[in-house]
């Protein structure tokens, strides 16, 4: 069942178009920065971009930071919203259920496929970022990189922390995926489900900037998204990273439980 869902997702041209489009923005930014030699000053613009001119190996992180606020969540929300509602709209959901796939199994398979999509997307963005970064900018093969705190990091440290950052971004996106999947079980319209998930994210981002909303700020789903930058401080600033993981874990758990409760008891009339 999981294999079926993975095949369906990755044999679909749309999935790869989404991933390709997602990579266009970081590549465009890289080209512009390279041509003009005008990187933002440290502390401004997307994280890590300022450091890219001196070390191209940091560009994967800059690329993730560029797509993280908007593009990546949109892509994940669209795919997640499509998970159940897309099958319902196409009419294939009823045939899966009478096959029978089992509602719980189907939901689990959809979730695993979604996780695979998030992971593949993040890895492709990082991979393309690495290739673009090392070809367009000077890479520092031996000396490693510089942490955000200014101290130098060895090659291994940089690689290890980059992997952790990729993992952290993936987990952050699972929260979005959980919202999308939950809404996807509520409606038969994939568009409505994706927009629902995006509405949550826009609301969260907006409230985050509002002082009056500060009491609930720690619980907003987007609150700790950029905490992966903290992985590159010296020493690593774990506080926000851990809180971010815990928060996403709670969101994912609650939303999946809700999605399961709804999906296993609902009348499939599509």
């Amino acid at each position, binding site marked *: 069942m999981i294999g079926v869902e993975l095949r*369906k997702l990755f*044999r679909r041209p749309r999935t790869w178009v989404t991933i390709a489009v997602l990579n266009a923005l970081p590549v465009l930014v890289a080209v512009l920065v390279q041509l003009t030699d005008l990187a933002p000053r440290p502390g401004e613009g997307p994280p890590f971009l300022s450091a890219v001119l001196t070390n191209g190996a940091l560009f994967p992180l800059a690329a993730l930071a560029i797509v993280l606020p908007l593009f990546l969540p949109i892509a994940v929300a669209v795919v997640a919203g499509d998970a159940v509602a897309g099958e319902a709209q*196409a*009419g*294939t959901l*009823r*045939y899966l259920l*009478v096959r029978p796939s089992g509602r719980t199994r189907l939901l689990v398979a959809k979730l695993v496929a979604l996780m695979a999509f998030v992971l593949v997307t993040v890895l492709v963005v990082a991979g393309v970022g690495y290739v673009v970064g090392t070809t367009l900018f000077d890479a520092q093969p031996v000396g490693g990189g510089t942490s955000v705190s200014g101290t130098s990091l060895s090659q291994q440290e940089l690689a290890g922390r980059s992997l952790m950052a990729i993992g952290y971004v993936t987990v952050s996106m699972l929260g979005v995926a959980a919202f999308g999947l939950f809404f996807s079980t509520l409606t038969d319209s994939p568009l409505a489900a994706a927009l629902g998930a995006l509405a949550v994210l826009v609301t969260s981002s907006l409230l985050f900037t509002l002082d009056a909303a500060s009491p609930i700020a720690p619980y907003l789903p987007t609150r700790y998204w950029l905490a992966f930058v903290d992985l590159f401080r010296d020493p690593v600033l774990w506080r926000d990273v851990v809180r971010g993981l815990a928060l996403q874990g709670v969101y994912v758990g609650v939303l999946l439980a809700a999605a399961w409760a709804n999906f296993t008891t609902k009348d*499939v*009339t599509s």
Partner: protein
Amino acid sequence: MSSVIRTRGLVKRYGRLRAVDGIDLHVRAGDVYGFLGANGSGKTTTVRMLLGLVLPTAGEVELLGGRMPRAGRRVLPRVGALVEGPAHHGHLSGRANLGLIDAAGPGGSRRTRRARIEEVLEQVGLGGIDRRPVRAYSLGMRQRLGLAAALLRRPELLVLDEPTNGLDPQGIHEIRDLLLELNRGGTTVFLSSHLLAEVEQLCTRVGVLDRGRLVLQDELARLTAPTGATVVDTPAADRVRAVLDGRVLGVDGSRVVVRGTDPAEVNAVLVGAGVPVTGLALQRPTLEEVVLAAAGTSADRVEAAR
């Protein structure tokens, strides 16, 4: 005979509307069961409840001896279904679609999958289909592919909702032959339709649904059994009344309905009296008449119940 589908007091309520109102279906092994009803009479809701897609408000469904929806995992692999038209992934080929649906549940061995797919494609007349995506199929081809998906695991029970929808007359004929052949091989067929002619040609047993109630459920042969009258076609209708006085039940142009279960006897009497007879048959109600009569009385019963 063992029952394949059995429902007891099946009810589905949407708010104040009773879409399905306490029906007791009984389909036996080997039947070709025609499930008739106007649009909106609750046919599709009933079919969905049989398959566990819609959960009943009250009552129970027994499918191949298992209580639905709980026994779904055990009994549904032995059921092939076509519900409200076929649905496939448009960007994949017909074979890829069949492969995916077969892999999506229990009871479809991976080893025999390719052979089974070729076999059912052959059965529904798509044996020579190429790799083009389903998006490019005609409506009739999609219908055939949907039927192929239903046949993929050689089910004991076929639940088909309007299976000839979108097919041309030759296609309808082909599918009818296929269903009859499968039925001879032991497959029970449950066919929901509003095409009376289709049901009349195919089914051995009929259930009629009207506004959520099962108003009729019987053998087709019994429903359309001779009424005990003979229909005489004659250019001299008025003379029949003179010859067979008291036995004439009705006259409609050149058709005269006469009491009597033996057309030969009626013929002998008429010809003996010099009345020309151009046609002669036992009177049988058509399925349409039976259904209209049954559905008509039910409407009154629903009113009275309120």
